[in-house]
């Protein structure tokens, strides 16, 4: 007997596994309880009927099995899915990308037997297993998502996480030098390949552009970090993106060693995402609509160099699909209750059985 019987037992086991992973936002069992309560209304909603706010009762049912198609650029997305799936108590299947995900495979291997038995890692896609799963979760390019979506049955729960970009915003009042220091960590995390990776920093005050770009370049240089063993393609795309910026007349800051980060000082109000691996642009912010319209559908999060944001800007961002706002420097550290692409991560997976107020469950 290896399967935890109740949510509480799973919470304890999952918390023990992920307690040493602050990057996933787990700080202990209580953080997982809070997550369940926040998303399902009650931490025991998966085990028993719990009262609904305005009468009646409801019990959540987790998918029996969840089939994940993982992207090659980011292991943490798959690891988060592992954490959430284990918390739900579902059978979890992970189809690896061609390049593999060593971090995820290591995490799976390190699971205690009771949880390990719930997880299957596949090198090759298994269409039958996917068709038999209650839920399908896919991470990847638009094309991958589109292809998988075509094969999923409408009865299956389908969650897709495609291309997204994030950016930083410096209001006129922000001190560029101070915020540049904080921005460095979010730029370099995960090789800048995730949806929460900032591609651009938008300066409300155009005079801040060269100051912030210079400060960012200095701060990046001070880290001494250079991406190790960059794939040929990545190096080529970085070189090409630098050339493109030079062609446009933008100033390009690079490390003394040439290899590594890039800061482009743009002259115009436009977002042009880079190839990742520490490639960012600093943009003089002009008209928001003009700036964001080309990226509608692809916007994820904003890191703000301030403690407050005018409601008018927040409303506009929301209308543009921006689903998370945080302090600059914290883009890559979303809290556990973060709503990925604006959607709850557990609640989207479960199915509810509700009982009207005039009827109640009885033992037996």
């Amino acid at each position, binding site marked *: 007997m290896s399967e935890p019987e109740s949510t509480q037992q799973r919470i304890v086991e999952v918390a023990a596994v992920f307690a040493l992973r602050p990057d996933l936002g787990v700080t202990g069992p209580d953080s997982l309880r809070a997550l369940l309560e926040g998303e399902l209304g009650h931490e025991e909603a998966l085990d028993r009927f719990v009262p609904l706010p305005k009468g009646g009762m409801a019990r959540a049912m987790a998918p029996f099995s969840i089939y994940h198609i993982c992207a090659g650029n980011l292991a943490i997305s798959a690891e988060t899915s592992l954490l959430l799936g284990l918390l739900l108590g579902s059978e979890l299947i992970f189809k690896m990308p061609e390049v593999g995900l060593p971090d995820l495979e290591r995490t799976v291997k390190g699971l205690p037997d009771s949880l390990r038995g719930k997880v299957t890692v596949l090198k090759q896609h298994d269409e039958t297993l996917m068709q038999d799963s209650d839920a399908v979760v896919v991470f990847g390019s638009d094309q991958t998502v589109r292809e998988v979506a075509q094969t999923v049955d409408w009865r299956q729960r389908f969650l897709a996480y495609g291309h997204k970009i994030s950016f930083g915003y410096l209001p006129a009042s922000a001190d560029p030098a101070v915020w540049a220091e904080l921005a460095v960590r979010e730029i370099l995390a995960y090789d800048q390949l995730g949806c929460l990776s900032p591609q651009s920093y938008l300066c409300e005050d155009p005079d801040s552009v060269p100051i912030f770009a210079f400060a960012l370049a200095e701060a990046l240089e001070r880290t001494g970090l250079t991406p190790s063993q960059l794939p040929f393609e990545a190096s080529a795309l970085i*070189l*090409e993106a630098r050339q*493109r910026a030079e062609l446009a*007349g933008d100033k390009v800051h690079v490390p003394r060693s040439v*290899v590594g980060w890039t800061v482009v000082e743009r002259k115009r109000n436009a977002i042009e995402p880079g190839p990742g691996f520490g490639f960012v642009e600093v943009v003089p912010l002009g008209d928001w609509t003009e700036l964001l319209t080309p990226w509608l559908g692809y916007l994820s999060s904003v890191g703000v160099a301030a403690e407050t944001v005018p409601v008018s800007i927040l409303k506009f961002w929301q209308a543009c699909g921006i689903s998370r706002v945080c302090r600059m420097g914290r883009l890559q550290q979303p809290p556990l209750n973060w709503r990925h692409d604006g959607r709850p991560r557990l609640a989207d997976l479960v199915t509810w059985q509700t009982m009207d107020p005039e009827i109640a469950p009885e033992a037996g």
Partner: protein
Amino acid sequence: MITLEQEIFEALRPDLPEAEFEALALKLFRHQAEHNAVYRGYLANTGVVAAAVKDWRGIPALPSRAFKQYRVATFPEGEAVRVFRTSGTTRAETGRHEFKNLEHYERAASGMFRAALAVDHRQVWLLLVPPPEDRPESSLSWMLDSLARTLAPGRVHWCVDREGRVDGGALRAAVQRCGEENQPVFLAGTSLALADFMEREDFLPLPEGSVVMDTGGFKGRQREVNPFLHYKQMSKVFGVDLRQIWNEYGMTEMSSQAYACVAEGIHRYPAWVRARLLDPATGREAAVGQRGLIQWIDLANVGSVLALATLDTAIADSGGLRMQGRVQGADLRGCSLAYEA
């Protein structure tokens, strides 16, 4: 007094000595650095002083994408006699290459084609591309037409329909007629056109002495195509030895071409062209045997820019290039946009 254009024209010959290439490359570079506004701006922004460049290897290469965004020319707008456009891949934007005259282009194309391929006055030309009157902005159509006018006058069949698709019926009929008359053919088309035709045709043997040439690779094609299997199938379908199949490397932004006999797999380029392979990680020349990004120096690009940076990759081999394909993700940019599952 001989002009620079005339000097370059005379230099487009197979026996061009290294020293003459070097001198002309530097001369043309300085001319373009002065008269090509886009190139001049690029050099200024990258801190390059033209007078300080003393070796053709030091000539900065303009990213070929510049042709998609700007007018890359040394002569005033309105003086172009011809504009070729890039076909475009997955992005909507296409590039344009303007020519003040086509003499250099014609001489470069003809010189290398004649030197590389065993195509002479015997073959009937069966071309799987639209004729230039239908596609006046296609450099491939223009080049093949220009070559055919001198090498095969009156013996050319454009085997495509009005939409530019391969006309299988016309091709089969032409091959059959040539077979009956024991007349070898020169069959040329894009890699995509030939691959599409071979999906419908199992066996269409060409008469002895025939030559097949494809060009363009498989940009924009949904499924991946293995070049080895592609040429093996070509050999089988057309009944020709791999030594009779050639691949042309060309791009709208260049005026010269490179050719590889697929049995050997090494693209060779003319004496007026140099290829520099760049290690993208360091920005310096790739080590011997190492894959690098191709930067071309093409003297025939007299009215635009002679040094071009591309995202095509190759390994230097036996005086030529073993092509390694285009950088993956080159047309998808940004964040995870550059990465596929």
